[in-house]
């Protein structure tokens, strides 16, 4: 089973990203997918997580993820307040929204790193909601690039199914843009 934890702040689309990944993975033929928010009250701006589990067989555990294969961080400021690495497997992937390059990032341990300037890409495509860039879409692109677990096509299919018709194209272009601009550095 492949486990993903999404880190972000309330309002950034963490839960939706976790759902879209689950649905895209199902399209890829994974019979077992689940996605769940942090159980409990939802508070805008507060750090929160959501999870996606992906498996070839139907999933028979709903327990919270202890150590994930991949951590996706929608908001780099989270790293200062949440120990993202403590819930990440050694050798796992951290995918970050940051203007920094993977080389410039110091990570405490043996992790693969993928970086994308999701905020800038979203802004350049005018993907803005309530004055803030929509960062979950570019990070889905980065996830596809970094892990190769799901294809862009599958994610785009889910966009077409779930999003209002008027915003589908913008999201698809952002997704593809982020996929191209994601840089990956393998664990040492």
């Amino acid at each position, binding site marked *: 089973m492949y486990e993903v934890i999404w880190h972000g702040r309330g309002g950034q689309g963490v839960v939706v990203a976790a*759902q879209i990944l*689950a*649905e895209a993975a*199902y399209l890829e033929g994974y*019979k077992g*997918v*689940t*996605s*769940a*928010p942090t*159980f*409990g*009250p939802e508070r805008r701006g507060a750090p929160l997580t959501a999870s996606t589990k992906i498996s070839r067989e*139907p*999933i*028979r*555990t*709903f*327990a*919270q993820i*202890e150590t994930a294969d991949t951590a996706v961080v929608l908001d780099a400021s989270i790293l200062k307040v949440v120990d993202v690495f403590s819930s990440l497997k050694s050798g796992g992937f951290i995918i970050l929204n940051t203007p920094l390059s993977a080389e410039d990032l110091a990570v405490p341990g043996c992790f693969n790193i993928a970086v994308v300037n999701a905020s800038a890409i979203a802004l350049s495509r005018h993907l803005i909601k309530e004055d803030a860039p929509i960062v979950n879409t570019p990070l889905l692109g980065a996830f596809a690039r970094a892990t190769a677990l799901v294809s862009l096509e599958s994610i785009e299919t889910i966009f077409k199914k779930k999003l209002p018709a008027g915003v589908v194209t913008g999201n698809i272009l952002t997704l593809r843009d982020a996929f191209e601009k994601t840089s990956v550095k393998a664990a040492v």
Partner: protein
Amino acid sequence: MTDIQIVTGNQAAAIGAMLCQVQVVSAYPITPQTSLTETLSRFIEQGQLKAEYVRVESEHSALSVCIAASSVGARAFTSTSSHGLLYMHEQLHWAAGSRLPIVLCCVNRGVGAPWSIFNDQQDAIAQRDTGWIQIYCRNNQEIIDTLIQAYRIAEAVYVPVMVCYDGFVLSHTMMPIEVPEAEAVKDFLPPYKPHTILSPDEPRNINPVTFPWRRYDDRGVLCDGYMELRYKLQTALENSAASIIAANDFFADAFGRNHGGMLWSYRMEDAEVALTSMGSMATEATTAADILRDKGIKAGVVGIRVFRPFPKEAVRIALNKAKAILVFEKDISYGYEGALCTDLKAALYSTDIRVPVHNYIAGLGGRDVKPRELVEASEDSLKIIASGIREPKTTWINCFTG
């Protein structure tokens, strides 16, 4: 074409209620049930479901509305959690005593004090003796399928059914479900025929004061007293097992999914250690059983699906070869032990099954339950049994006990 949707437990329940073409919905929002009733109200608002959504000021009124609606022949639905269910308590008795086939989704949540919005099954277990059939679901597929079966059962035996599923763990977790076809559900569910038609042409007073004795009515019929009516309700619950199994089997034929009827077994054929539980924790137990088997311990799972009527006969058959029975549950009957454990042991009392039964309390107030923890508990139990102790104290998993 198969319609697979990736949905939360609450969405699954809302789609299920829509497929059952419920005619009256009355509910009051409470975490973690809220998104179920929100989704249903949207279906009604958008015209996907032709039903009356009656807004009320409390759960007590929500169930009262369903009682009234069901009395005049409408298929009625409500849902709640925790304190909402407790607030319905009186009306739960009224619904069952009036023999109304209402279906209620209980999205299981712990009960205060202190406040908790998180999952355990204390709310539903506390309503055990209200005369409702109680069915616990292990995943979102079972939620939608059980809801559809629930109306068929309820309307066959005139007993209300509580469909219970774990708050957040299932209610807010998305997973793929197969959504049954609307036409097929219509065929599966014949229209509801109320046992009493209230009509101005033949006026009646329902639920008048009954006396400790039986009495003749104006037509010379010797009418039941309170105790006869209680006996009829008890008999209906006992006999409902047949309808529950029939609904399960008929559903399996029609839709290709068999949820086991009263209970289900996982890898029990040669199992020496039987893990038993209800709801989502029974699903965790199947993963735990796999891990135990990898370690060379022959483990299996008996998932109790129906808690009332208690599956006495089915439990005896399912556990007949086990050498140790471990009961994991998310409730506690204060001053004794978990409610499931007590009932399970009672079911085995007059049989030759004389194996140790160990009780584990887990996951109260939303504390996460991991398969690994069920594995560790099972290994502990085996060590305790090997050391010659038959009945250790009830163990609280992953709880600081000083």
